[in-house]
């Protein structure tokens, strides 16, 4: 079996790698020759285990700019991520263009085409036109654990032109490599399932952040509450119950924006969903509110650890760290992140190669991404490197007792010292 992937963004790289890891030959197509040149050597997105799979499956992969290679495939995925703007609004033109080009190449051939790209309800039917063999398959990858989720999905959602249609045997053969329950539905149901998943996650994030904020001020401990909530079958062990700095990464924000646009068109009451966006903004600004409470002389030189919107990814889309950097314009900042790169350094905001370099001589240190390597920092060494004592650690990466023992002043979303 040979499977084509058109579009070599995060989605295409991850899915082509896990397909090859299942022993299936893959063709990865991208319009950008530079990208293909890089992909011949290594993946170009940062995702745990992707490098290892890339190396282990090199003999099963062809990377090319030539779309006609898809003619040799039994199945082709459209695997280009849909870009979004700062408001989460999708630009699906690239997916529409790639799909049309693929249809032109395939001509009358009925090789199954499966769209993995994130489409709003109604789009698959519009793109497919009268091609009933087009399938929309929902991706539910998570940055940082995308390989794990793609290799071991809890379920696979398949949208067909008509939910009574049978899945093509060639697509079925691919699905069987992943040993997961398959939910077949029509295009619109599948498209809305994708959005529904993310809106449920947005509700958990919003409610968790709101309740954790209340817990801090009334003397309750959210760390004691969360396990009791997880044990409730209606909430569940995997629920998003860790307080954070609002929504980031782009995916949930995209589906919030898509919902708002649909709600406006179809006159659906949108108040509850809109409140998630407002809540996210409020919690993203938690660090800047802390900074406003700190005297200006303590802001003389600031160290920031973490730029990515969460650990194990290089993505900085809507990262709370970017909002803090914007707030600290005019302050001397030294920033470190193990993977993510600052797009543009300024005279005052500089990215450095180690956490020590960032911390040395700083008046104040902020941990903006809970990378596991930061949890291993020796806090006595940190104190000695710093010129001040204030540590803002929203995610409580550092141990509360170790912080106290080192004589540092600590502010986190859990509690303050």
């Amino acid at each position: 079996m040979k499977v084509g992937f058109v579009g070599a963004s995060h989605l295409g790289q991850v899915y082509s790698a896990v397909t090859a890891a299942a022993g299936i030959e893959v063709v990865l197509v991208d319009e950008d020759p530079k990208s293909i040149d890089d992909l011949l050597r290594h993946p170009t997105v940062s995702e745990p285990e992707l490098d290892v799979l890339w190396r282990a499956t090199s003999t099963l992969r062809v990377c090319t700019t030539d779309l006609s290679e898809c003619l040799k495939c039994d199945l082709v995925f459209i695997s280009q991520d849909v870009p979004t703007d700062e408001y989460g609004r999708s630009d699906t033109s690239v997916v529409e263009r790639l799909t049309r080009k693929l249809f032109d190449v395939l001509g009358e051939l009925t090789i199954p085409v499966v769209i993995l790209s994130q489409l709003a309800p109604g789009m698959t039917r519009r793109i497919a036109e009268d091609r009933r063999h087009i399938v929309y398959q929902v991706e539910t990858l998570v940055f940082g654990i995308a390989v794990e989720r793609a290799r071991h999905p809890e379920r696979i959602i398949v949208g067909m032109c008509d939910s009574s249609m049978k899945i093509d045997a060639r697509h079925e053969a691919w699905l069987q490599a992943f040993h997961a329950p398959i939910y077949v539905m029509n295009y619109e149901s599948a498209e809305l399932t994708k959005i529904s998943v993310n809106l449920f996650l947005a509700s958990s994030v919003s409610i968790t952040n709101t309740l954790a904020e209340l817990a801090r001020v009334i003397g309750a401990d959210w760390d004691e509450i969360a396990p009791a909530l997880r044990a409730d079958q209606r909430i569940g062990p995997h629920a998003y119950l860790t307080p954070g700095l609002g929504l980031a990464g782009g995916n949930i924000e995209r589906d919030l924006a898509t919902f708002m646009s649909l709600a406006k068109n179809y006159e659906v009451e949108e108040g509850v969903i809109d409140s998630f966006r407002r809540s996210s903004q409020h919690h993203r600004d938690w660090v800047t509110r802390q900074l406003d409470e700190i005297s200006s002389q303590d802001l003389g030189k600031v160290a920031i650890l973490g730029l990515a919107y969460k650990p194990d990814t290089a993505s900085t889309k809507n990262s709370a760290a970017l909002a803090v950097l914007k707030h600290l314009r005019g302050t001397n900042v030294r920033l470190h992140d193990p993977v993510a790169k600052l797009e543009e350094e300024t005279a005052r905001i500089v990215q450095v190669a180690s956490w020590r370099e960032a911390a040395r001589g700083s008046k104040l240190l902020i941990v903006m991404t809970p990378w596991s390597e930061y949890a291993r920092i020796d806090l006595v060494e940190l104190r000695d490197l710093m010129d001040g004592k204030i540590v803002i650690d929203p995610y409580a990466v550092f141990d509360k007792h170790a912080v106290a023992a080192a004589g540092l002043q600590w502010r986190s979303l859990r509690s303050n010292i």
Partner: protein
Amino acid sequence: MAKSAEQHLTMTNRVLVIGAGGFVGGAIAKKVAADGYEVKRIDRMLLDLLAPSAADQLAGLIRSSDCVVFAAAEAPCKTPESLQRNIALVFTVLQAIQISTPTYLMNISSDAVYLDSAMPLSESSPIGPASLHGAMHSAREALLNSAPTSVIHLRPTLIYGFGDPHNGYGPNQFISRVRSGADIHLFGNGEERRDHVHIGDVARIASRCLLKRPTGSLNVASGEVKSFREIAELTVKLHDEKVQIRVTPRNGPMPHGGYRPIAIDQLRRLFPDFMPIKVLDGLALEVASYGS
């Protein structure tokens, strides 16, 4: 003998499954994920445990708060070369654990470590493996006992269930033969009697141990003894197929003296509400799920 640690039960630990691509490791990973743990799966594609740098690489993946399930093995171990590779694999894991120590280590061992006996085998029965496979597991247990963390050795008896790639003599082979319309061949008259445990039970017990954290060793079995003939007849009956049960003369003595009962008192003490799957139900489950 397993004893339960007195500690606060927590669901916050991540479970790192070494050998998640295999029959037992895969089933455990799936079950603990469904039970709410964050799971990190390590399989051969991600890490070759026999590679020179494997211990360091594995250590880099282990967090101190992890529970580690060590299910990787070259099984069944039938040759001296395979034994050597299996031991090398244990050394890799042991070295990694010495560098980066997890909270809890679960080793997937086997009842093959026991000396054959006409009495039900309990965790305190004498160790005396009769095969290289048993010797491998026995050495593996002894080596892992030096790990600087709490260790449990799960000793499952003959496991059956969907996903077993070995198709060895027993329920899985009988089911697949009946499904393809082929006759079942029993050695001798299929009269040897033994315990068979369903893969679902192995995964369920593993998941429950990760919460309760007993240490020592623990038999994982159904507590029920059935002959291969009984199992073959049940399989044919469940499938309602017109296949025959044929007999093939034995070319050696019956394994384990023809009788392999496993005592599960320890399992019942640890998990009083645990109801093992009876072979008839397990076969029905397999018949219903095969190929789906």
